[in-house]
């Protein structure tokens, strides 16, 4: 049961490693950006999981319900901000890839590096 109870945390760790591995090993810059998005999503999952409270509902106060249990809203708000940061990073990264493609005619990291060395 303990293993299942920590299921989300395992997913967090696995996603994080998939993202990091792809960031290091992939040469294609678009794939690198995708890896970055996976890497960041893992952290979002981590924060959302920690905010969960057993039997908790959405943190909205309902009239007439006493002793309401709800999940901790703060990590969710933090992640809302972190998602915005993640999207901006992805957008900027893709914009740079577009510019790189215009200048070098390729989106492969090793080819760009080789062209840089020549100049």
């Amino acid at each position, binding site marked *: 049961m303990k293993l299942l109870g920590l299921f989300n945390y395992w997913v967090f760790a696995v996603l994080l490693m998939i993202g990091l591995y792809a960031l290091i090993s992939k040469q294609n810059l678009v794939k690198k950006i995708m890896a970055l998005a996976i890497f960041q999503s893992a952290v979002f999952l981590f924060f959302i999981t920690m905010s969960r409270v057993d039997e908790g509902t959405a943190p909205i106060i309902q009239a007439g319900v006493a002793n309401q249990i709800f999940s901790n809203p703060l990590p969710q708000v933090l992640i809302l901000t972190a998602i915005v940061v993640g999207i901006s990073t992805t957008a*900027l990264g893709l914009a*740079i890839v577009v510019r790189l493609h215009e200048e070098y005619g390729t989106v492969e990291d090793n080819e760009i590096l080789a062209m840089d060395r020549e100049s």
Partner: protein
Amino acid sequence: MNLADHLPALQVIVPLMTAPLVILLRNGFLAWLGALLASLASFGLAILLTVAVLGAGVPEYAMGGWQPPFGISLNVDGLSALMLLLVTGASTLGLAGGRLSLRRDIDNRRAPMFYGAWLIALAGLCGIAVAGDAFNVFVFMEISSLATYILIAAGRDRRALSAVFKYLIIGTIGATFYLIGVGFIYMMTGTLNFADMALRLADVIETRPIIIAAGFITIGLALKAAVFPLHIWLPRAYTYAPNAVTVFIAACSTKVAIYVLLRFNYGVFHGNLLAHSDLFTVFIIPLALSGILLASAIAIYQGNIKKMLAFSSVAQIGYIALAAGLATHAGLMAAQLHMFNHALAKGTLFLCVLAFVLTTGSASFSNLAGIGRRMPWTMAAFVIAGLSLVGVPGTAGFVSKWYLIVAVMGMPGWGVPLVMAIILSSLLAVVYLWRFVELAYYGQPPDGDVSRMEVPLPLRTLIWSAALANIYFGLVPQLPLALAESGTTTLLGGLLP
């Protein structure tokens, strides 16, 4: 509350709110002027805050009247004030000195956008220095990083694009690691406020999540701070960025990451993790030492003045990390002083490089041969700042090297080898700087033309005031000393002698 109470908030708001206004100005010159005025205003605010810190201190600022630890709080102590002076000073120096250079590097149509991004980067960096909680530090860090990527990629050199892509990837990994660490701490303590965190950690001391959090945060910030060997993004990013941008970011962006590192490792973890000083020291000192020696050695073999100075920056970050890793009062003093003095020296050096490139068009050694005879004023300023970088008595660099050596000598058993390493690295710095100085004064210009060609007088005045500041703070180091002393006291909270 009168206006003076709002200084910590204004420090962020002034550049942040001016940025969209600057973008609306559809004219390169007006946008530059707007950005310069906003940057000068931030510098003024930083000076006011410094005066307040050295006087009665700045009370904790509760954003919107929500009291900490629930609301967002802004804290300004000696260390923050030191960072604010650095950041706003470097931005003003880059903008004021960069007008001619940026007009050449940035398309006039895009200039307003560029200056807007500059101000956003400034706002983010100031925000990190004043923020009193871990998550706001993350947000400001990402704001400043995203804007910095834009600044670096804005020039005409296409190699800047591949350099900035690498910086983006590594910078984001660093920031995400930091966020994971903050998550673990939040999980254990339920708070994000630095002061509150330090108190509540005492209950969960020595638990594994906290140790893991300390690891994630330290490595994440070391990536951002370019501590050797996590520096691979730095040399190319500094080299291919527009020259004025290099003046700005080389002087302050890595130091801000070191600032957060100090805040976390000393303000939060140090009093709470029993083995913290050992873990941190054992992790950071070998990296710092290899950075000091190897990066200085690599700098000797560079054929581009910007790249040489970039590798020198990696070595200087090593000095700061070494001092910070000692976990003593003297060590922290030395780290903060060296942040200040290195920013001063590197800002001046890159400003001189900007002037060289403005007149000759390239930063490669072959192109700059004989430049000392053609631009004697700028070259003399370069030599002064170079001496400060090496740490010659009478310059600012000497003060921090002196403090560093005193701090290192206080380490039982380690003292002498560490001092040897510092001296060896300073000699390496003499070698790489001399290579350029010799070339500049005795080399033959590529086209054999030795006529005078100086940059315009305003830029020359600015370069010389920056160079003289290096001497001034070498002879009268009271200001950075007082700030570092106050910062060290808050960081250690009276824990260490």
